């Protein structure tokens, strides 16, 4: 399990889980589960286009994540956010199938992109993930206070710093960055479950926001590690364990539910 060829998998999964856990805290606080689900899927054609053009997969994912942010932010103007997310997601997935159909490498790469593939991560990919992960986390630290304030009480934030539509852009941007690095590892379909499950469980264990953020990161890392270990032992896909363990986190959180859940209601 700790053989040399698994080393990259462990390192990348840890970095992805740290970012996902931290971003997930804000996803849960801002009720953006659908956007967190739609953005990774929206990035899916990016990977397909990258393989068609022969450029780096991370670049393709990043470009399409940014496109997704622009599309969702524009479509949701004066509209329902979830409709915007749903339509963007369907459109980009359809585009992804078309591109993958052209590039010829169909079944296996679709499965890997959607459900994740931890093995075979190159050193270059590792560095890309680390760089983008650091950017995402620094943005998060920079905007943590206003993001949290706006999530908990929009009116209070408007009174304190003025209502700014830019904050939504920043948030979606951070989401897009973490998406781009997470998609190749846990897959487009399951990135968000690593964000939502641990973060929603974390609310149950403490009612202080920053402590909850830390718990969320810890749970996400634990989930990712356990998923890799179980996947290695059973030879079953890693996506299955990520999905099920994240759901288990949520159920555990609800069972011992206290803290922020009651307060936020």
């Amino acid at each position, binding site marked *: 399990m700790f053989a040399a060829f698994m080393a990259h998998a462990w390192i990348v999964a840890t970095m992805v889980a740290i970012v996902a856990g931290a971003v997930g805290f804000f996803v*849960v606080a*801002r*009720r953006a*589960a*659908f956007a*967190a*689900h739609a953005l990774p*899927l929206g990035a899916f054609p990016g990977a397909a286009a990258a393989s068609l053009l022969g450029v780096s997969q991370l670049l393709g994912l990043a470009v399409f994540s940014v496109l997704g942010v622009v599309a969702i932010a524009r479509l949701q103007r*004066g*509209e*329902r*956010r*979830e*409709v915007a*997310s*749903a*339509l963007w*997601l*369907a*459109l980009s*997935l*359809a*585009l992804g*199938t*078309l591109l993958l*159909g052209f590039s010829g490498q*169909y*079944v296996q790469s*679709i*499965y890997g992109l*959607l*459900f*994740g593939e931890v093995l075979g991560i190159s050193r270059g990919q590792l560095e890309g993930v680390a760089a983008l992960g650091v950017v995402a986390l620094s943005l998060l630290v920079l905007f943590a206070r206003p993001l949290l304030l*706006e*999530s*908990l*009480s*929009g009116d209070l934030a408007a009174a304190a710093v003025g209502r700014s539509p830019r904050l939504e852009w920043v948030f979606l941007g951070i989401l897009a960055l973490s998406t781009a690095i997470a998609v190749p590892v846990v*897959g487009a*379909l*399951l990135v*968000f*479950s690593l964000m*939502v*499950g641990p973060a*929603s469980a974390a609310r149950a264990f403490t009612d202080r926001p920053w402590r909850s953020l830390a718990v969320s990161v810890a749970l996400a890392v634990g989930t990712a590690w356990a998923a890799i270990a179980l996947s290695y032992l059973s030879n*079953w*896909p890693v*996506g*299955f*364990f*990520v*999905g*099920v363990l*994240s*759901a288990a986190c*949520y159920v555990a959180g609800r069972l011992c539910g206290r803290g922020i*859940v009651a307060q*936020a*209601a």
Partner: protein
Amino acid sequence: MSLVLSVPGFLASEPVRIALAVGGGAALVCAVVGCATVMRRQSFAGHALADVSSAGGSAAYLLAVNPLFGFLGMAAAAAGVMEWADIREARERDLLTGVVLGAGLGLAALLLYFDATVRSVSGAAVTVLFGSMFTIPASIVPLALAVAAVALAASAIIHRPLLVSSLSADLARAQGVRVRAVALTHALALALAVSLSAMTVGAILATALLIGPAAAALRLAKRPVSAAVLAALIGLGATWGGIVLAYESFYWTPGHGWPVSFFIVTLIFCAYLIAGWMAGRPGTRPAAHPSGCEGP
């Protein structure tokens, strides 16, 4: 790129006729159920049901049963779980939907893996997730149309109480509406619609057929019934138009057709943009939502 459609040849093809029938039924049901879904702000739930149903579709390949049963069973089970949890606050409902979705997708990953390893059905992932309308077996048609009829009937029966309880649950209760029964019926109709849609355009694209035509129609129509009719027209037009284009695409890139789901989703998205443009012209825009409804 010639657009010379030989109509007799097109209609003589058995797969095309099946695709037209099943796709048309799916589009109709999705349009009607979709209007209620968009109005009730359940787009995410509808999308989640569709995605989760992919686990059922992959299980069906594993067990070698009719895939429609798989889609139906899983979508109905997920709808049951989400309705059973009966969470009032929007915040929690959103999260629970996400969690059910994640678990369902994880299960789909496992079952698709088994499809590939145990059954050696390598194309199952693509078929289940992205649909393959032209390979639907003829034996499914009567069942699919029956499912469509049931879902349409259920939506027609509950449409008034559902509308009232979408606007205000308290008001509905005061009028003697059994809110939970109505919500459960709607959730089951949603599951039926979604599994039909998953059958035709694929599980993860099913959302387009469910949300797209309804959202476009709701931008233009001022009354629920006219919205449903308009959505049905948009959905049917996009589905049948997509089938025609996919059939044509065999001539564009020789020997290699474009995916039919791609055309359907693109047509729906165009309809949505056009609807927004038409609604955006002065004097035609329906009343905006009260701003207090959305946002943190």
